[in-house]
């Protein structure tokens, strides 16, 4: 299977971005939860770990998805023959 070089580098950077974002996802989703008891200091009225579970983690998840969609859609548009549809 021969692949064009730009396609391969596109896939490589995609994988790198996915890995980075998943690392952040893991740290927020599981890291904070594992140390929840230790991280119970006050945070605007909430215990910190409770706030992360109820709001902080959720907002980070949304940011992760938003950033990924934005970066990838820009990368796609920059590719020759990439997807330009819905581009305004």
């Amino acid at each position, binding site marked *: *299977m021969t692949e064009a070089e730009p396609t391969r580098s596109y896939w490589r950077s995609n994988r790198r971005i996915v890995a980075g974002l998943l690392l952040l996802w893991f740290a927020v989703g*599981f890291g904070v939860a594992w140390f929840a008891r230790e991280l119970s200091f006050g945070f605007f009225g909430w215990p910190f770990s409770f706030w992360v579970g*109820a709001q902080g983690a959720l907002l980070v998840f*949304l940011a992760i998805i938003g950033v990924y969609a934005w970066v990838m859609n820009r990368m796609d548009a920059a590719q020759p023959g990439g997807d330009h549809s*819905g581009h305004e």
Partner: protein
Amino acid sequence: MSDPGEQRRFLRRLNKVYGLYTVGLLAFIAALAAAEQAGLPKRWIGVTFLLATVALYAGIGIICRTTDAVEYYVAGRRVPAAYNGMATAADWMSAASFISMAGTMYLQGYGGLAFIMGWTGGFCLVALLLAPYLRKFGEFTIPDFLGARYGGHAPRLIGAAAAVLCSFTYVVAQIYGVGLITTRLTGVAFEVGIFLGLGGVLVCSFLGGMRAITWTQVAQYIVLLVAYLVPVVWLSVKQTGVPVPQAVYGGQLQKLTQREKELMADPRELEVIALYKARADGYAARLQDVPGALALERAEARRQITALRRAGAPLADLQAAEKQLLAIPADEAAARMAWTQAQQAAEARARPLGGMLPHGTPFAGDPDGSPAEQAAFDDSRRNFIALVFCLMVGTAALPHILVRSYTTPSVRQARQSVTWSLFFILLLYLSAPALAVLVKYEVFTGLVGTPFDHLPAWISNWAKVDPTLLSVTDINRDGVLQLGEIRIGGDIVVLATPEIAGLPYVVSGMVAAGGLAAALSTADGLLLTISSALSHDLYYRTLDPKAAGGLRVMISKVMLLLVAMAAAALATQKPADIVFLVAAAFSFAASAFFPALVLGVFWKRANRRGAVLGMVVGLSVTLYYMALNEPWLRGLLGVQAPGQLWFGIQSISAGVFGVPAGFAATVIGSLLSAPPGPQSQAFVDALRRP
């Protein structure tokens, strides 16, 4: 529909239609509120809400009816990202999210956050690992993808079977929720309620498939969001004066924690706890010598009857005493079982705060306490993490959510659509923990301490629907309600919130309509997934590849009807609680689909044998663990072997073993057989290209 100009016009038209719809909905609610002030009876308000919303959904279904396969299975692939996100959010937020989630948090405090984190974090996996590639592939179902990637019938058929299994488990929970709400809203019997709600689902998905479901779900999303937010905002204004509960409930949580400390030291609460403890000890003593205790109890009951007869007591008293004699377990085994259960139940309530943990403290036990406390802490933390894991991976593997990647016009919009989905989901999910805290504060400060003859009406109303969901008993006979004397089921917290907070009945009707919208929208999506698996994957792709589009849609509709009936029949048995059924569906989906799908995109070496092995092993491990440890399933399957927990993980998180097993089996199976052919290599390359 690839022309951007046409897409823009379509989007503008949608904005206008749904804008008008939202205004109409608010006007409808306002009109009912005015009618209530003018003296419209409560029952009529409930019935109006029920009929109006179900008629609306059915109406959309009739307008969107179709027999075209692309329209029926994937809504013509032209749903704009934001609307697809909204439809996915409604598809996603089921009776479990709407009805049970805040209730679970009410009962478990921090432990309930596993659901919040798990059900949102999973979307990261969907967006990063699956959605763009599925859209790029662009067929009809998830088994389609497995069939195309791995080749042959086996992966597709196993995929279809797993899709049916997890969607069916899930849909039973939704229909149970529908029954619960209709019963409360209209006062009809539970079984009748189920079939009433089912009518609404069927008209919609039966006529219009994915197209009707998508546009109905957008309408349902708006109903359920309004219905969820109004009571939370109202409660927040009532308690804090600020209409943004998400920002201010931290303060209420502090006050709640303070109140929890007071209640833990309250002498009357301690009295109730001591009484439960005594009760538990009483059962424990009887369990020491079951035959002796049984004989003693019978003799005592007989003695009482004789005494009553001799005294010429009224017939009613005599009958009551005879009933008591009959209620004594028939034999030793039955007595042992009944008393063990009663002992455990009493034991569970002989704890501070009626068995609830302090709301803001993560995990049970104490890492620095006695060995037993340390073990409880470790166990609780492990289970929390395992549950979060299962829910996240399950989210990224549920066919009815993944199939949503097919309905957008492009890969670009598929990525944006997931972002929109999570955004719309967060609007509700950020409010649920706030609702739990505000309701708990209301109950702990407002309700606890009320004299029994002044209890609000909602308590007896809900106790009538199902006494296992709510019951109050004056255990220490002081005529005042203590926290320890309330038993409340998680499934009614949200539905009863308006009444707990003393809001007008129209809000109760609206919340019930919102819960109904949540359950119906999810049930729609699930039923369609099941019927597509049967009609598209089993019939069209495997049995009769020449079948015409119209025939396929016809078969799908018949399947839909049959599956809906079967699910309703099972739901009338009230199998288990909603949250458990839903969580089980997540574990099934996670272990069956996630490894095969992700490795299918990210590992070229994965081949058919590996995928088949992975799906079968993953699903088997999960099923085995659940059948071994879940009491309801044990009873159903007649499992005799003693239950055994691995690492103390509860059966609700069985996927935590199934998923790694599935990954390992896929890798081993692939490496032990020949690499996949050039066709599937080319397939993966095409997926990865921009």
